[in-house]
């Protein structure tokens, strides 16, 4: 179950993002959860949280781009900014803002922040409150079967309700910790060290209904962003495009991406559609098999 971690009681000197990522690359193993919440790791993450200039530096980098292009991009995406990388690790800052008052903006921003949407993560991660009172979150756990489909019942067990204020550290296990953030009372920021293990690449994120204790949907992180090249390929692709699609359908680790590739081939080559369906029905993930059984719906 998700762990609350306790840094050393003696105040530690703050460290930079670069120093922290050097430590991560040297000492932590994305395949070994224990290394992430070991005392040394907790102490270093705590020292990073004590550095007050991290988000300002990222902010200024982004603001410097604004006059040239109003499309905020760079290291920013969704509601987070990428602060650093190490092999198999990402360090991100996440922004948790109370939604606007207008009805339309409230609905969109609540969705955009994924507030009150119970979900798990395909990766294990360390998280710490960096600024503000933090979000409150309700945490459940389950056995973490990775082959669930929407509608499947799940044995979710209530674990705790907790908050992530400035200075607090927590560790979430991949797949089996399920949580839903509630809207924070004030703008807050958390830092996450995400461990991209080999298995993490193959797992979808799962969304749950906590009351009914069922899976409501599965999604790749940024999953929908993968779909558009395949939709365009169906319309403008040629034989060379099909070659690339065939490789993706067989080799890509993400089940949804394999599904998109199978679907695109079946539509581009209608004469071979049955062969494609048969191949997809043998896929290792139920998501792809389900798509094939339904005839690759839109």
């Amino acid at each position: 179950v998700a762990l609350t971690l306790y840094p050393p009681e003696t105040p530690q000197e703050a460290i930079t993002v670069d120093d922290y990522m050097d430590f991560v690359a040297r000492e932590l193993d994305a395949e070994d959860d224990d290394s992430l919440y070991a005392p040394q790791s907790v102490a270093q993450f705590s020292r990073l949280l004590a550095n007050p200039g991290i988000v300002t530096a990222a902010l200024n980098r982004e603001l410097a781009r604004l006059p040239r292009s109003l499309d905020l991009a760079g290291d920013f995406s969704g509601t987070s900014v990428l602060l650093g990388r190490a092999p198999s690790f990402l360090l991100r800052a996440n922004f948790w803002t109370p939604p606007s008052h207008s009805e339309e903006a409230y609905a969109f921003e609540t969705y955009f922040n994924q507030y009150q949407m119970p979900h798990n993560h395909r990766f294990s991660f360390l998280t710490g409150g960096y600024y503000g009172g933090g979000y409150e979150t309700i945490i459940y756990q389950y056995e973490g079967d990775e082959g669930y489909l929407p509608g499947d019942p799940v044995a979710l067990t209530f674990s705790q309700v907790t908050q992530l204020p400035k200075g607090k550290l927590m560790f979430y296990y991949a797949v089996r910790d399920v949580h839903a953030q509630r809207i924070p009372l004030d703008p807050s920021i958390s830092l996450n060290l995400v461990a991209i293990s080999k298995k993490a690449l193959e797992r979808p994120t799962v969304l749950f209904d906590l009351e009914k204790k069922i899976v409501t949907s599965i999604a790749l992180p940024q999953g929908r962003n993968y779909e558009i090249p395949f939709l365009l390929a169906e319309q403008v692709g040629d034989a060379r495009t099909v070659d690339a699609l065939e490789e993706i359908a067989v080799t890509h680790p993400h089940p949804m991406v394999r599904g998109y590739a199978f679907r695109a081939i079946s539509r581009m080559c209608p004469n071979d559609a049955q062969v494609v369906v048969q191949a997809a029905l043998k896929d290792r993930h139920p998501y792809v098999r389900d798509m094939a059984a339904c005839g690759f719906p839109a």
Partner: protein
Amino acid sequence: MPGQTERAKAVSALQKIIADLEDLPLDHEDFSQSAGLFTSFLRSAALREIIDYELRKIRDDAHYQPAGSSKQQMTLHNGRNFVLTAIVAKPAPAGLPPKLQSLNRDSFIGVVNGVDVETTVFRIGAADDAWRDNPCVSFLRQGEALLVRAGVDLVHLRPLSCAVLLTLASQPRFDAVTEYAADTLEPLRERVVNPELLWTRYMMELAIHYGDAASAGALRNAAERGSPAVCAAAARAIEHIHCRE
């Protein structure tokens, strides 16, 4: 936009149109100057080359995520003075009443594949209520493009089947669009569409709490050149930073 520079380098037709467009003044009055460049890009094989590039990247790198993609559109390039986008446009589900809408950016819209798109345009910016009596209905066919003016034209597109569209749009002239009922031509609602607005809000919240003198300098530039909402948000953030300091 992460990845767009690398993509432009890999697809020569994309690199060329970016360089050509960035040489043009694409202000509201001058936007039509880009017509020739856009039409020749539309009629080239550039989009297929871009898609093949994206699929190769997805095939070769499990971590790769296509740059600028959302569910039904892909931003091919977000330049200094324009945005180039590919869109998959499907026929509206049966039973949905058709709507017209204004655009917040001047936009060329062109058809890539062989699907005809019925277009209905009202020029509301022209004069009084007479615009209601003068719809321009036509079909946009493969390789053809239509210019829709922000704040001037109301448009409705009806693809006959799944159409692939390319759009070349200016930077935002407005932060919202207005939807109109196609039968009565009465306004239904105003919808905020400028995707920068939410980001702007995050940026400004961050600047208010974390900004320093360097942030204030960058915000001053944004306040001078951004859309109205960006200008207002930047000015507010600068004020907060000054008060704090």
